[in-house]
């Protein structure tokens, strides 16, 4: 009897549990994963060259096209390099800020820092991108600042560097890089600060107590324990850069990025299979990145 009662109680509990979980799981399954799956499916469909109609026939032709045309390879490499550069720069800039927020700032200053980091995220993304185009323009406030600091020569030198340079900051990869870093920096600072805040003060004291100088404590204790936060932040900056199409189309040199290609192929060009194949690229790259991060032990301290 007792066993039965227990069983039915268990049964009822798991029923309620299922009831509670069903809506979010359906949402996640259908809206997120379902659409992603149909997108992936599209990349294997053929397209009629003449009528531009999609034929639901399995083919690898799109991927062959994606991976053999030099122009497409250029786009992938360009986007990947930008994502790597933006991620590295974000990490370097974010680390001291996050460390100060998490370990040194008093409660009021810390709150101020959090607001300061998040406030820019509350304004429109488009407004910020266009504002940056004006800031970086040839007659913009950035070059005015360089001029008044007597650094115009340095700016001109930087803009003369082949590939990354250009006629002005607003129309060079350097400018695009600056805007990307500006946009995604909060996504690096916040997880990093959270990870650093979780490191108990006693671990740092223990390290010093055992004879480690501040630099050694940083290398041996702080940095390894911040790695999960760094990994989380870098996934944001990396994947956001890989997928973005607005920043490269508003600021920077005319070269195409993956996001722009997806936008163009599924819109004006009407080549949905190629757009789908292009959008698979960031997924694969992020998957590889996660594997690498795991291999390097970024999640060991979790």
């Amino acid at each position: 009897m007792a066993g039965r009662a227990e069983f039915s109680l268990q049964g009822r509990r798991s029923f309620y549990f299922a009831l509670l979980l069903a809506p979010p799981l359906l949402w996640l399954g259908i809206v997120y994963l379902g659409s992603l799956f149909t997108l992936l499916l599209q990349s294997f469909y053929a397209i009629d060259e003449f009528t531009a109609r999609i034929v639901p026939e399995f083919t690898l032709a799109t991927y062959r096209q994606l991976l053999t045309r030099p122009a497409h390879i250029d786009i992938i490499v360009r986007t990947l390099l930008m994502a790597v550069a933006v991620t590295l720069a974000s990490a370097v800039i974010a680390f001291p800020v996050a460390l100060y927020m998490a370990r040194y700032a008093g409660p009021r200053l810390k709150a101020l820092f959090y607001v300061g980091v998040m406030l820019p995220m509350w304004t429109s993304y488009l407004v910020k991108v266009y504002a940056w185009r004006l800031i970086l323009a040839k007659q913009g406030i950035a070059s005015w600042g360089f001029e008044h600091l007597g650094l115009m020569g340095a700016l001109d030198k930087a803009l003369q560097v082949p590939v990354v340079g250009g006629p002005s900051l607003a129309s060079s990869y350097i400018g695009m890089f600056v805007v990307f870093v500006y946009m995604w920096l909060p996504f690096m600072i916040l997880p990093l600060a959270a990870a650093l805040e979780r490191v108990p003060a006693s671990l740092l004291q223990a390290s010093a107590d055992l004879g480690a100088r501040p630099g050694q404590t940083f290398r041996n204790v702080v940095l390894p324990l911040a790695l999960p936060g760094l990994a989380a932040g870098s996934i944001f900056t990396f994947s956001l850069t890989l997928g973005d199409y607005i920043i490269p189309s508003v600021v920077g040199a005319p070269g195409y990025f993956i996001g722009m290609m997806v936008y163009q192929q599924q819109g004006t060009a009407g080549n949905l299979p190629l757009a789908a194949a292009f959008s698979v690229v960031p997924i694969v790259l992020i998957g590889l990145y996660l594997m690498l991060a795991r291999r390097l032990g970024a999640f060991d301290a979790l």
Partner: protein
Amino acid sequence: MTPAIELRATRRAFGSVVALDSVSLTIAPGEFFALLGPSGSGKTTCLRLIAGFDQPDSGTILLDGEDVTNTPPFARNVNTVFQDYALFPHMTVAENVAYGLRVRGIAAAERAKQAAAMLDLVRLGDFGARRPHQLSGGQRQRVALARALINRPQVLLLDEPLGALDLKLREEMQAELKGLQQRLGITFVFVTHDQGEALSMADRVAVFSQGRIEQLDTPRELYNRPQTAFVASFVGSANVVGREAAQVLTGRDLAFAIRPELIDILASGEPAADGYVQCAGEVVDVLYHGASSRLRVKVDEHTTLAVACAETAGSGVAGLTTGTRVRLAWRPEHAVQLQG
């Protein structure tokens, strides 16, 4: 002999709260020293100052005769076992233990050898490859000990070393710590709020209250000769009798303390031995503890004395219940006079 640790008029305040109020203290080399007190009494602040995690507002701290008041922790030949052990979660047990050698630039092979020897010393020889989270509380405690001892410090500081362990493990570790200290001959300074721990392990105990040292003595002296009401009631349990009540009981205007086990209960009609202080009272309650019973006896309007008596004495304790009238007696020299 140069003292291992010396604090001279050390003061530390946090805002308006004075954590340590002009404390002076000398600890001899090889001593097992306890800083005992309730929370907020200044004992942990004292330990942190010795370790170098905090600097005093005024006063001087000397280690082995050398002024280290402003020396950072990494440059002091002192190591600490933290209350939460503070083991590095991203390192194995062996890497944790070898950390002190690693930051001193000792070669990997030598590090591994010494770490293994240290782990053997704390009987964790087979656990070097594990991660701290795979160990029990007692094992972590021993890893923390091994890690702190690998640098061969002059002084080992222990912050509530047994606080996080259960009772049985705590008793085992008490004996283990004491044995380890005797074998290594290192000065051990430990912070505790548990008077039993302080009495059983330490050679000398400093009792802290409100940022000051109330009394500094051997455990035996502390227990038998408490100097203040605070020490009498904090170290073991004692009846603290204030001046007015003392006037009534003994006829002398001097506060005193008396341990419950030193008070005799007289059988009805039994005369007190010569020179004993006597008084009469009414039993408030009786708590049976197995080997002994603990009674509270109201001897005066404002005074209740705790009395402990062995069950084997056959003194008729079994018959005592709430409301019974009894007579109490104690030797005058067992009553310890208190200051103030």
